[in-house]
């Protein structure tokens, strides 16, 4: 399957989206709501590209657009550049104090008209939905997108502490704009209005996860988990690797 992107021919894999192809070939298409391993959502609209359809062109979002043989794509046309700038402008008006969005605006040369900027706004969430997707993929679905229109937000049911949340922090980890507040203090993790007891690594003693998250993993694996942090786990594997191969070197 051949796909032409910016006048260069690439090999497409049937069933993949334009974004997946672009990522394989390191063709740059800006995006905020796409993450490898998760299906595209089409929320942020930053990945819009222009595709040829007959004699006309059409603006599509590459993270959900399925490729077809002979597809012609332009990722950087005048039209696309104008759309991207406006989308970044809209995000900047919504989150004027967010470092990530500010740097994006700078990169694309976007400046918001002074009189429409409300610099007192403390919003950081751009509603990309990655946190919700991550939580869903994990099998917990403790948070979701609630309400609609301008009052849409990410939250737990009725904003109460969720019984399903295990405090794993995957949501905060995938968030591109660091909008989810998670604090680890005095052996307690606080996230989504709920407190979790932190578990310390049996090797280095660092607080690295919560009781609930460990139990959740154990229930999935049907086996007891070693109480060991990611860093020490890697180190252990390194040691074992070295042991196994020491006779070869």
């Amino acid at each position, binding site marked *: 399957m051949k796909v032409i992107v910016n006048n260069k021919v690439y090999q497409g894999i049937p069933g993949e989206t334009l974004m997946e192809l672009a990522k394989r070939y390191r063709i740059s298409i800006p995006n905020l709501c796409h993450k490898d391993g998760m299906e595209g959502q*089409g*929320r*942020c*609209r*930053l990945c*819009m590209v222009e595709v040829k359809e007959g004699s006309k062109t059409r*603006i*599509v*979002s590459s993270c*959900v*657009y*399925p490729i077809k043989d002979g597809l012609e794509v332009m990722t950087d046309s005048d*039209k696309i550049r*104008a*759309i991207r700038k*406006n*989308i970044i402008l*809209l*995000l900047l*008006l*919504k989150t004027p104090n967010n470092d990530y969005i500010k740097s994006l605006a700078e990169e694309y040369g976007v400046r918001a*008209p002074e*009189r*429409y900027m409300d610099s007192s706004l403390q919003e950081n969430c*751009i*509603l990309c*939905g990655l946190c919700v997707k991550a939580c869903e993929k994990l099998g917990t679905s403790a948070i*979701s*997108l609630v*309400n*609609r*229109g*301008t*009052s*849409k937000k990410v939250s737990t049911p009725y904003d109460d502490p969720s019984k399903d949340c295990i405090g794993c922090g995957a949501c905060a980890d995938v968030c591109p704009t660091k909008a989810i507040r998670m604090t680890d203090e005095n052996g307690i993790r606080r996230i989504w209005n709920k407190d979790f007891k932190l578990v310390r690594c049996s090797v280095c003693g660092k607080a690295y996860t919560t009781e609930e998250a460990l139990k959740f993993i154990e229930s999935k694996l049907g086996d007891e988990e070693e109480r060991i942090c990611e860093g020490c786990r890697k180190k252990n594997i390194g040691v074992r690797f070295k042991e196994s191969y020491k006779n070869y070197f």
Partner: protein
Amino acid sequence: MNEIKRKILVCCGTGCLANKSYDVYTGFLDKLKGSDIEVVPEVKATGCNGLCEKGPVVKILPDEISYFKVKSKDVDEIISKTILGGQVIDRLLYFDTKDKKRLVSHKDANFYRHQHKIALRNIGEIDPKDIEDYKAREGYKALQKVLFEMTPDEVISQIEKSNLRGRGGAGFPTGSKWRTCSKYNNDPKYVVCNGDEGDPGAFMDRSIMEGDPNTVIEGMIICGYAINSNRGFLYIRDEYQLARKNMQVAIDSARAHGFLGKNILQTGFDFDLEIVRGGGAFVCGESSALMASIEGHVGEPRAKYIRSVERGLWDKPTVLNNVETWANIPPIILKGPEWFKTIGRDKNSGTKVFSLVGKVKNTGLVEIPMGTSLRELVFDIGGGIIKDRPFKGVQTGGPSGGCIPADYLDISLDFDSLSRIGSMMGSGGVIVMDDTTCMVDLARYYMEFLSEESCGKCTTCREGINTLLNILNRITLGQGKEEDLELLESLSETIKEASLCGLGKTAPNPVMTTLKYFRNEYLDHIVNKRCPAGVCKNLTSYSIEEEVCIGCGACAKKCPVGAISGEVKKPHFIDRDKCIKCGSCFSVCPSGAVKIGGGLIESYSK
């Protein structure tokens, strides 16, 4: 003497019910029960007649006498004079505002005379809860014709040949939708009816579901047969309680009559229907959001690069049509595509139901052939503008539609002509505006509606509409700048191009069309700090022209804050410090002496 078997049809649509038509209906039943009348008339509770404003409506057949604004105290008189004596009660007759006379049959009224009823053919004529009424008017004949005389392929060909296009708004050819879906063999397939009518001012689908539910059911069964589907869903919006009730009664009786369920009419074909109550969101009228909602998910649309005829409900091939489209199917099957094509124009066959509202004399549901001119709709059927004020324009297609200025009064009302000038047919809402409608405020109103009703999934729609709203708010408050217009245009373009679904893609239409056709009015707000329609209070002031004022004192009487003073038969004055700019003086003045001026520029230095 009453030798004729008469029929009394009492309208029990939502509008008439609200005006206590059910009391009128039961009033007739009570009076006639046990009476010694020789030939007892039949009393029926029917669906909406369209002229809700003049309800409750009572029709007497076969005399074709129509009474309007009937109260339960009129029941005795109607029985004694009309039913027994064959007399017409003059004061209850329809008054035609154009010809200025009372009419015995509403069918002679201008409002009705220009109409051609296909989708609404049975409404007001039958009791929606009685399947026998529907059957007596060729009901389920089309289904029998299809099941016993036609192959699925022939059914689809007939619909294709008729050029029927989806009445929900986009105008996609129904036949080709069915054809594509029929080609997929990924069972099970689904048939869905979109009854989530959400455009402000539109109520044709409601009227059909309430007044003639069986025609929708029959249309859907026919589609099920044509595309080989055995299951259908009716997605009806939460607020339409009566529609859901009547529809459920119709489903149950259709099942009891063997039109629904297993082995329909002993042909071996199975098809059944169920009602899904809508979640109460405007966006759920968008097909993919509607399907997500049926599946039990949040009503958010998805990208439709793969069409729902291939992967729709539960990722299975699905045909989704709106209520009015379904209502057109049985007549097309019975009378044939050639008949249907004789109505309407070229690629826009048949009729369209419009809900005519706003500053027009006759409001209500109007079914007219496609291609009828806007002038005919507003001035012949609608009877012109209230108080004969100047006509300014119409907004078609609800919040996603566009506004059409007076220059286009002779435009043909069809899918293609409307989209050519930046508006759209949408569900058929037509809001008529006069010179007291502010176009900036109109655009602002729709952006406010859409900012609340956008599902919020994609950035351009959610943030874009909200930003348009902020800009428009500032303009109506007198804080606009000329460069705001460029920003409005540029953002509108982005929202239109980059939004995920139809709601977002069409949302900027009210802004784009008002900017295109009424740019001077925007500039008036921004540069002259003046709202010519007197709607934006910050940009309005009222004054009385001395030479024109006849000193009648009507304005002073009407003024709620006592801001107007003056001696009888001498010019009056408005105290600007007291004036709250309500506009009462302007609307009450018989001589047109009250003038609308701009706001005071000094207060807008910001």
